């Protein structure tokens, strides 16, 4: 043990043995144990702060476990790295002279974090691929701008990343892991009381939780599925504007946006001030699209703007007809092939071919975004051909099955003849 440790040990033993409050003895014992657990710890990672703060009540409570999970602690930083003071000494731990800052004022938190995280040279020592533009982005965000204007209720670094148990985003328990991001944003944005002064909706989290993007991530396990930060940005968080939201969607939904750009809606929406994509699909409550959305039926979205007689209505009718036609043909083929298969006929090749028709239907549904029936028809055409072919294969299989029944009929005749013969023979020998 080095000099400082010995000194501390002496102090602790004195503390424990002197009569004093039970609490002091408790603290002393706790630190004694802590000492023996880490006898040869280097001065840099010595963290006396935890000696006391692990036993205090919230909000002062920071346990050793909590801090051990912190990525900063794992990289060798201590409480003093942010809060100042001298972590190696009990006396100087909270000394203003040693630079102790106490609880950091909210307005100063981004600057404090940015003091390291915007320093590319410094961060390079720990993780060269980590970005260092978070603070700059934050200044452009709604949160950053409001904070600069004096509103301390908006989110700062610690609101999203947590304070003492900051984990990297790849950690499943991290508040900024993709699986948890929506809940983290929802802590404020889904709280109507908290958001009252801002006058914006608070149903986004509820809507998102019902969306197909949420389902992709949570149910199907696709971590690359969009969450709040994917469309809004994380450090530079701001809602995409009406004119630009389509650009956000098109980063993933490339084909649909390309088709949309060539179609009649792009100009129409722009002049009406309507956002692309969101107008039909909503922004947060994005549900799984179905064929009823295109068309003129009860659940149609087209009829929200188009009425009977106009070109859009006709296009919608045409599109739905093509989709419905292919879907019903595929269903018909599938049904007959299943019937044949249940009867024991070999139709596996036809069933495999029918998958191509499914593919055509999927592509046709993408082509809907051109809002031109001809383009949709182009895709459904190949699907229809495949459906026809497989349907005929099913009919052939059923015909073969009927031939079997004919064979059965023949053998039944033979059996009947034998039965009659037997009966007559019995009569003969017993007359």
């Amino acid at each position, binding site marked *: 043990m080095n000099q400082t440790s010995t000194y501390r040990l002496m102090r602790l033993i004195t503390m424990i043995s002197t009569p004093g409050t039970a609490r002091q003895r408790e603290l002393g014992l706790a630190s004694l144990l802590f000492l023996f657990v880490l006898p040869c710890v280097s001065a840099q990672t010595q963290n006396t702060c935890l000696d006391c703060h692990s036993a205090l009540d919230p909000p002062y409570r920071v346990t050793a476990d909590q801090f051990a999970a912190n990525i900063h602690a794992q990289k060798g930083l201590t409480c003093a790295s942010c809060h100042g003071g001298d972590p190696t000494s009990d006396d100087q731990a909270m000394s203003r002279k040693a630079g102790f800052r106490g609880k950091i004022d909210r307005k100063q938190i981004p600057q404090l974090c940015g003091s390291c995280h915007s320093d590319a040279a410094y961060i390079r020592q720990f993780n060269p691929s980590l970005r260092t533009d978070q603070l700059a982005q934050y200044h452009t965000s709604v949160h950053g701008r409001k904070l600069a204007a004096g509103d301390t209720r908006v989110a700062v670094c610690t609101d999203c990343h947590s304070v003492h148990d900051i984990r990297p985003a790849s950690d499943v328990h991290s508040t900024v892991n993709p699986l948890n991001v929506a809940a983290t944003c929802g802590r404020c944005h889904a709280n109507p009381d908290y958001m009252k002064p801002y006058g914006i909706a608070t149903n986004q989290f509820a809507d998102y939780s019902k969306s197909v993007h949420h389902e992709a991530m949570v149910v199907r396990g696709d971590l690359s599925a969009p969450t709040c930060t994917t469309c809004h940005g994380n450090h530079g968080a701001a809602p995409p504007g009406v004119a630009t939201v389509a650009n956000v969607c098109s980063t993933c939904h*490339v084909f649909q946006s390309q088709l949309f750009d060539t179609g009649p809606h792009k100009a129409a929406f722009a002049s009406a001030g309507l956002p692309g994509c969101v107008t039909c699909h909503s922004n947060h409550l994005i549900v799984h699209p179905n064929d009823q959305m295109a068309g003129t039926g009860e659940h149609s979205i087209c009829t929200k703007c188009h009425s009977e007689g106009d070109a859009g209505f006709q296009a919608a009718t045409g599109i739905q007809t093509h989709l419905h036609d292919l879907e019903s043909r595929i269903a018909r083929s599938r049904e007959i092939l299943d019937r044949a298969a249940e009867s024991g006929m070999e139709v596996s090749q036809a069933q495999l071919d029918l*998958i191509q028709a499914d593919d055509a239907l999927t592509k046709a549904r993408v082509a809907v975004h051109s809002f031109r029936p001809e383009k949709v028809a182009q895709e459904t055409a190949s699907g229809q051909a495949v459906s026809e072919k497989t349907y005929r294969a099913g009919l052939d299989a059923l015909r073969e099955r009927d031939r079997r029944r004919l064979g059965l009929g023949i053998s039944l005749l033979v059996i009947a003849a034998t039965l009659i013969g037997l009966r007559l023979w019995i009569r003969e020998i017993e007359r």
Partner: protein
Amino acid sequence: MLCCEVARRFRLAGVLRETPAMGGSIPDRGFAAARNQSRIASPQAWADTRSNMHTGETVPPNISPGGNSAARSSSRRTLLKTFLGGGIAASLASFLYPVLRYLVPPVETNLGVDSVVAATVHELKPNSAKIFRFGNRPALLIRTAEGEYQAMSATCTHLSCTVQYRKDTQQVWCACHNGVYDLNGRNLSGPPPRPLEKYQVHIQGDEIQVIKT
């Protein structure tokens, strides 16, 4: 249904003969009874009938009211025998024929569950691919520009469209929603959430065998 028919035949055939009384609780011993049986016809309607309890041998009955009916019944018997024999033979043939056809193994003996012959060695040029059938789903066999073979499932992990190989980008591409995979099946960009299931490729002689790992 069956029992009524049989009962009727019982009545028609009138296969009855006498046996001496058997004691109430003495067990019926099938063959003991037979040995003790009287072969004298009962004093009933069948008095004139020679009991022709043979195993089917043709013995014309003695009740000939005239030689004519004897000849007729003999020829009827022969006819019946032929008919019955033919019927039984035909029925046996109709049972035996499917069995014999069954015993001949079909041409394709591979069930296609674990491994499949996807192509022959000279079939694919470098930088080209082929969709083949593996079990009940499509699969993709790629011959890379360097001449190596890669095989993987051709069912896109996004919404199950069938993927294809693109010569220009030398990657696997799904035309439905622009999903892209590399030549190892790993999903690179676009909606696919998972890689394509990879298969092993073995070259045996002239054949390229694809095996599920």
